[in-house]
């Protein structure tokens, strides 16, 4: 069902912001958008409101049955709508999205901040494992201590 259309009487075109909005176009989610004649025509020709060339960057074809377990959107649908359905889409389509990210950003690896409060289970750091090891030794839990020592050694060898 399409959403209620706002009266574009007072509005200028949502795209160019220069001409009065005279036409309403609904996007693929049923959201209304008010455009002038020229912009409405362009939007309908290109078939999408923004990011017109994004589908070209989401090229690799995946089997149709491979849908995201979180929102059940297929890769083919994602290519058409140029938006992902949910955070799980990123995990499910990781390999295909890696190629898209290279084309979009020139990178595939995040190099910025991490959330203040991690959304997933907290990743152990060498410092936190050392702390657990010290506590296990102090409490004479030697089996736990040996396991923690091996884990710490593995982390230290794995780090550059």
């Amino acid at each position, binding site marked *: 069902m399409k959403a209620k259309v706002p009266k574009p009487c007072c509005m200028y075109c949502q795209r160019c912001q220069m001409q009065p909005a005279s036409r309403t176009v609904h996007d693929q989610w049923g959201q209304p958008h008010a455009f002038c004649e020229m912009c409405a025509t362009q939007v309908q020709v290109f078939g999408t409101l923004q990011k017109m060339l994004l589908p070209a960057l989401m090229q690799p074809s995946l089997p149709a049955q491979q849908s995201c377990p979180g929102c059940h959107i297929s890769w083919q649908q994602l290519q058409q709508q140029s938006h992902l359905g949910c955070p799980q889409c990123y995990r499910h389509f990781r390999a295909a999205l890696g190629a898209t990210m290279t084309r979009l950003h020139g990178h595939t690896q*995040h190099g910025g901040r991490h959330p203040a409060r991690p959304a997933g289970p907290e990743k152990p750091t060498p410092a936190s494992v050392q702390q657990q090891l010290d506590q296990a030794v102090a409490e004479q839990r030697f089996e736990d201590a040996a396991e923690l020592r091996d884990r710490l050694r593995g982390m230290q060898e794995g780090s550059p």
Partner: protein
Amino acid sequence: MKDLQCAWLGELGPQQGVVLSSRIRLARNLDGYPFPPSCRPGSLSDVLTLVTDRASQLPDYTVVDMSRVHPVESHLLVERHLISPAFAASTRPRSLILSPDSRIALMCNEEDHLRLQCLVPGLQFSEAWKQASEVEEFLGQTLPFAFDEQFGYLTSCPSNAGTGLRASAMLHLPGLAWINALENIFQQVGQLGLTVRGLYGEGTQSAGHLVQVSNQVTLGPSEEEIVTKINAVCDQIIHYECSARRQLLNEQRLVVEDRCWRSLAILREARILDANEAMQHISMLRLGVDLALIPALPMALLNEMLVRIRPAGLQMESGHELAPAERDVVRARLIRQMLSDNQA
């Protein structure tokens, strides 16, 4: 809504002759919920409750339920760059959360669950980034933002993933336009991974020699690297714009003066002004003020004029809906009034 405080309009910032404002925008989503375009209204309402509950703990912030805002008022928010045109037109459950001076604006349930922006006058990216990241950290203490070790902060559109950070500056470049060098600058900006857009963002046209420069790449570089890069590029564009203005003064002073004074005369006397013509003359007036060719006109007045002459601003001014032809008359009257008030 008419008396909405807007720091970027009322105050002046560094490099104000060329830069109207700097903006940092962060996109965030809550883990466990589909992104707004694919999310059912019930779940969107849950997101809205979670975000507004946390955001309302920010001191003196105002929560605006967008479903209760009149279309003219929501368009006024677009004209003041506090919300996007798509957010104004949307019918999803959504709200806007504003700091007292409107520097910080949070759109809840736009394309992403949370779009946080800090908008400041002049060229002040570091300041805008500092303020935006403080608010983001506060929200992130209780809100579980969707995050992935490889793709960073997860956003509805992959073009925003990673840092979710879009830094943009609104630049006034009449000097470069005059010497026909804008196209060249835009090409070079594009080669640096930045993009140039119209005044109201994606898909909008530029008017009055006003453009928005913003970063395109959000995944890979850190937030600080993105901010440093756009700041350096804007500094360079400002340098070229100032050189162009100086060269024009040296070589064609009388012609520049004539154009600026003609624009002032038209704005002081015209009875009908469409948006394009008004923007064009205000642009010349801004140039004249910056070059000290036209005395005693405050830059803040011209910045305010650029916003108040937009359709929703005019309708708020007149108190009723206006047909396009009526708007041109009200616009001309408002400009005459603003200029004569300043003379008094």
